[in-house]
């Protein structure tokens, strides 16, 4: 069984359609992003979609014009079809990090996962916090730079710089597939704590 899992973040209609900038960013990334997910599935790696579900009594959850998005069971909370396939795992989360008060860590451990490839929206929030959380829990973290999106491009640039400096390998999705197809593992990047 593969020791690599791809984690997607917040690929849900309510969140993607929040504004035109988000929609455009996801649309632009979709060809490379969905191709990457397809390639990883073909190679037997796990795909886990982290699905943000806002709890009605969460006072911090952002409302869009007074309406709470991505409520459990709604159409807008579903993972959009372009990124979903049979065999993918769905895991609900209620906060930014996919690890926060979920059983993601236990499920990854049960699967024998050692490396997580973190993707999705938005780069500077859910992707970044999930990457940090994964790093703290001892996973080797990779982030494909063309499979993470933000409404504002500069937020993705800044988040990639931060993750590169603190907790993750950054590479394009093509580079990651090339490494895997060369028969090598995705190497763990060492970070020196001062």
């Amino acid at each position, binding site marked *: 069984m593969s020791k690599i899992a791809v984690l997607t973040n917040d690929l849900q209609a309510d969140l993607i359609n929040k504004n035109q900038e988000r929609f455009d960013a996801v649309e632009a990334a979709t060809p490379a992003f969905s191709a990457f997910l397809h390639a990883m599935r073909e190679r037997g790696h796990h795909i886990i979609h982290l699905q943000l579900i806002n709890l009605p009594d969460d006072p911090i959850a952002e409302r869009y014009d007074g309406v709470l998005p991505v409520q459990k069971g709604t159409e807008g909370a579903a993972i959009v079809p372009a990124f979903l396939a049979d065999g993918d795992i769905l895991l609900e989360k209620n906060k930014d990090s996919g690890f926060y008060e979920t059983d993601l860590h236990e499920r990854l451990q049960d699967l024998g996962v050692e490396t997580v490839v973190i993707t999705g929206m938005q780069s*500077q929030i859910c992707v970044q916090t*999930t990457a*940090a959380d994964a790093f703290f829990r001892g996973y080797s973290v990779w982030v494909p730079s063309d499979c993470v999106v933000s409404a504002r491009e500069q937020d993705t640039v800044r988040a990639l710089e931060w993750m590169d400096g*603190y907790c993750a390998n950054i590479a394009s999705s093509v580079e990651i597939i090339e490494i895997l197809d060369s028969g090598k593992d995705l190497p763990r990047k060492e970070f020196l704590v001062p």
Partner: protein
Amino acid sequence: MHAGTESLLDQHIVLDHGTGARLSRELVEFVVDVLGDVYTGEMEDSAVLPISVGNIAMTTDSFVVDPPVFGNGDIGKIAICGTVNDLAVVGAQPLYLTLAMILETGLPIGVLHRVLVSVRETAIEAGVKIVAGDTKVVGAGEADGIFLNTTGIGVFHEKPKRMTDVRVGDRIIVSGPIGNHTIHLLSVREGLGFEQRVVSDCAPLNGMIDALRSKVPAEAVRSMRDVTRGGLSAVLHEYSSALDRTLRIEESALPIDHETRMAADMLGIDPINAANEGCLALFVAAEDADSVLEALHSHPYGTRAVVVGEVTDRPGKAVEMLGADGRLREIEELQGAELPRLC
């Protein structure tokens, strides 16, 4: 725990818990039962207390931390620590605290129980008694779960410590890592993933100050301040203003945990502006800095104490920092960009 106390644990606060009738009485009995020996109130309208002749220190603080229960603490612990520390840093021995609670309808009494247990345990550690209390209940939406107020009284066994006692050349010591409390709370609020790696520093510091007092001459420590809202920057600006002297610190000396720096970079926060709940800034005579450090290091809350700067002889209300790159820059005083409800 009494049977009556246990039976309340799975209930929620209702308005009648604050109306002075039977439910009010049961809630007060619950509070008194949980606080145990720490509570010395006698249900009179005022506490009558023995106190030595001379100056007393008195302080008050309100607590609205969000969330009220976090990874390694809660609003009860903060409420005791905040007031105890405010008394201790002026050189007083904290003795008596009041505890006033504003509870929102719907608050699980189990949460209140946890908070009261923290009040009790922290008061025991700090050696203080809760001598009076008050409970008010408001409707849903009129508060946020639980707000506390503590007022404290302490007595002096030595001259009170004041900002104006600080002298040019004094060293500035920080007793522990800065920024952890803020990062922990923000991470708990938003689920950022740092909350297990970075925990709050919330602690009663009077024990550490007592240990310091027993090992160095009283005049070695000119003045102290607990580094809370506004962070180290706010403390340094207060002293600089009071002294009309420029304070200089070194960036490389600041005790900032790696994970805290990571999170601060991500959130766009400078740890020097971040609130703490268990950290002291001490202004110390230069010749005594080593012995003060040694004394602090011998206490569990001071193991990472470090000299971070000094009081220069240059007039002017300014705080400057020598960067890791060798460049000097002025630290601006925050104008109100502080993050809310951290204590």
